[in-house]
C-alpha cells in the first residue's frame, strides 16, 4: 500500500511525460531559439519574441500557469534589467528612438532584444521542465540513463540543499536581525547583512558534509550491487507523439533558417 502512496499520479498528460522526453523538448526548444535568434531583420532578432509565447502557452496547457508565473518572476526581472541596461548604455551612430535626454541607439536595442529574449526563452523552458517534474523523477531518470548513482546523488542533494539553504538563510537572517544587524532597507544595507550571513550558512554545510558522508556509508550507499527502487517512473504513453512534434518543429525551423540564408 505504501508503494501506491509513493507513486506520482498526474492527470495532465503533458505534465506526465517522461523526464527524458521533457529534456529533449527543452534542448530542441533552446536550439530553435538560438537558430531563430540568428535570423536578423534590419539587424533585429525579432523572431524570438513571438517564439517566447510558446512557453506560457505550454505551461498553461500543462496546468501549471500560476506556478510558472511565480517561479518566473525573478527571471523576468533580470531579463528586463539586462534589456534596459543594454538599450540605454550601448551607443552607436544610429539613434533608434529618442525622448528628451534619453536616447536609445540601434545597436543597444538590437543586443538588448537578442540577449533578454534568449534568456527568457531558455530559462522559461527550463522552468517549465522543473515545475512539471518532481526532483525524484529527475534523479530516477538520470540513474536510468546510466548515470552513476553517486553522480545522481550529487545532483539530487544539490537541488534539496538549495531549498534547505533557503530556509536556513531565513533563520540566520532572523538571528542576525535579532542581534541588531540591519537586513531590511536599501540594497547596500542588505548586501552588508548578506555576506556575514553566508559564513554560518556555508560553515554549517561543510561541517554537515563530513557526517553526511559517513551516514551514507552507514546506509550502504557505497555498496556496488543492484539497488532497489521504491519509486518507478511511469511513462504517460504520449512520449513518442510529443518527441515527434518537437523534432518536426525543429526541422521546420532549421529548414526555414536555411531558406532565409539561401534566398
Amino acid at each position, binding site marked *: *500500500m*505504501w*508503494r501506491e*502512496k*509513493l507513486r506520482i499520479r498526474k492527470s495532465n498528460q503533458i505534465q506526465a511525460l517522461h523526464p527524458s522526453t521533457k529534456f529533449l523538448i527543452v534542448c530542441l526548444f533552446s536550439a530553435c531559439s538560438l537558430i531563430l535568434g540568428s535570423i536578423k531583420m534590419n539587424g533585429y532578432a525579432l523572431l524570438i519574441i513571438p517564439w517566447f509565447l510558446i512557453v506560457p502557452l505550454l505551461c498553461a496547457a500543462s496546468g501549471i500557469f500560476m506556478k510558472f508565473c511565480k517561479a518566473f518572476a525573478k527571471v523576468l526581472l533580470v531579463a528586463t534589467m539586462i534589456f534596459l541596461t543594454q538599450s540605454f548604455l550601448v551607443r552607436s551612430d544610429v539613434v533608434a528612438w529618442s525622448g528628451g535626454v534619453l536616447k536609445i541607439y540601434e545597436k543597444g536595442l538590437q543586443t538588448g532584444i537578442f540577449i533578454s529574449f534568449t534568456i527568457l526563452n531558455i530559462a522559461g523552458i527550463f522552468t517549465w521542465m522543473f515545475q512539471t517534474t*518532481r*526532483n*525524484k523523477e529527475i*534523479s530516477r531518470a538520470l540513474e536510468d540513463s546510466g548515470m552513476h548513482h553517486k553522480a545522481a*546523488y550529487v545532483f*539530487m*542533494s544539490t537541488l*534539496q*540543499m538549495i531549498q*534547505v539553504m533557503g*530556509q536556513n538563510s531565513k533563520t540566520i537572517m532572523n538571528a542576525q536581525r535579532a542581534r541588531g544587524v540591519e537586513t531590511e532597507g536599501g540594497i547596500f544595507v542588505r548586501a552588508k547583512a548578506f555576506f556575514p550571513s553566508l559564513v554560518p550558512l556555508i560553515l554549517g554545510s561543510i*561541517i*554537515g558534509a563530513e*557526517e*553526511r*558522508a*559517513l*551516514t*551514507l*556509508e*552507514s*546506509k*550502504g*550507499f*557505497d*555498496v*556496488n*550491487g*543492484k*539497488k*532497489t*527502487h*521504491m*519509486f518507478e517512473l511511469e511513462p504517460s504513453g504520449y512520449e513518442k507523439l510529443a518527441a515527434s512534434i518537437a523534432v518536426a518543429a525543429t526541422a521546420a525551423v532549421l529548414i526555414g533558417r536555411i531558406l532565409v540564408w539561401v534566398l
Partner: protein
Amino acid sequence: MGAIIELNNVTYSYPLANECAIKNVSLKLEEGRFYGVIGQNGSGKTTLCSLIRGFAPSFFRGSLTGEVLVCGKPTLDYKPGELSLKIGYVFQNPFSQISGVKDTVFEEVAFGLENFGVPVDEIEERVIRAVELTGISALAEKNPYELSGGQQQRMALASIIVLEPDIMVIDEPTSQLDPEGTESVFEIIKGMKDRKKTIILVEHKVDLIAEHADEVIVLDKGEVIRFGSKDAILSDETLLECGVQLPNIALLGNKLTRSGVPLERIPITEQQGVEIIGKALRTRSWCK
C-alpha cells in the same frame, strides 16, 4: 562466548592533532550485551565509536597503532559497505543523518534497504515495523527536514534499526528528546538487546545507563579508566573527579553509608534503592 569486538592496545590521534584522542585502549566486548559508554565532553567517546565502526582511520585518516577487530577481523580488512550490514551507527547530530534525497520519512527510512537491494515487498514490511517501533508512523508522509530535532533523532534510529545489524553503535540518541521520549528510546534499545543485538551506547544520562546497560565503559582523556560491571562502577564516588556523573540514588547511598547507615551495597537504580535502603531501615540494628 568469544568477543565480537576487540580492541588491542589501541592508540589513535586525528590528523594534525597534538594529543591522542584514544590512548592505549584494550577492550573485549561480548555478543548480545549492552555497553554504556560515559565520560565528560571530549573524553573520546565518539572517537571510540568511530574506531569500532572503522571510520577512524579509514575516513578520518590520522594514525592508529594496535588493532580493532570486529568478529575477529581487523576493521581495515573489510570491504566498503560490508561493515554497514554488521554495525549500525547512529550519529550524535540527527540533522546531518538525513540522506537529503528523499521527500518523505518513509522513503528516508527505506534508503538503506534500497542500497542493499532488498526486494520492495520486504522493504515495505521492514520500514513499517521500524517506524512503528520508533513511534513515528504518524510522521511517515512528512518531509524529513520538517521534523523537530527529537523526531529526527527517532527517524535516524529507525533508519538504522531497519537494517537489522548485529551490532548497534549509538552516539547520544537522546540529546534532543524530552524525558518521555528518552524513556521510549531506551525501551526501543532494550528491545534490540532482547533480539540478541550487541549495543554500544554513548549517553550522558547515567540514571538510564544504570537501569538498562549490562556493563559500563568510562573514558577520561582518551583512556578507559573503568570497564566492567555497572554496579561497581556507577557507585564509585572517585569518578566524580573525572567529571563523570553518578546516579542520584548512588550519591544518596554513599552519603547514608558515610553517616553510619550500613547498606548491603550502594544502590544504583531506584528499584535497588528502595530494596536496599528499605532493608536497612527495617533491621535498624544501627539505630541506637
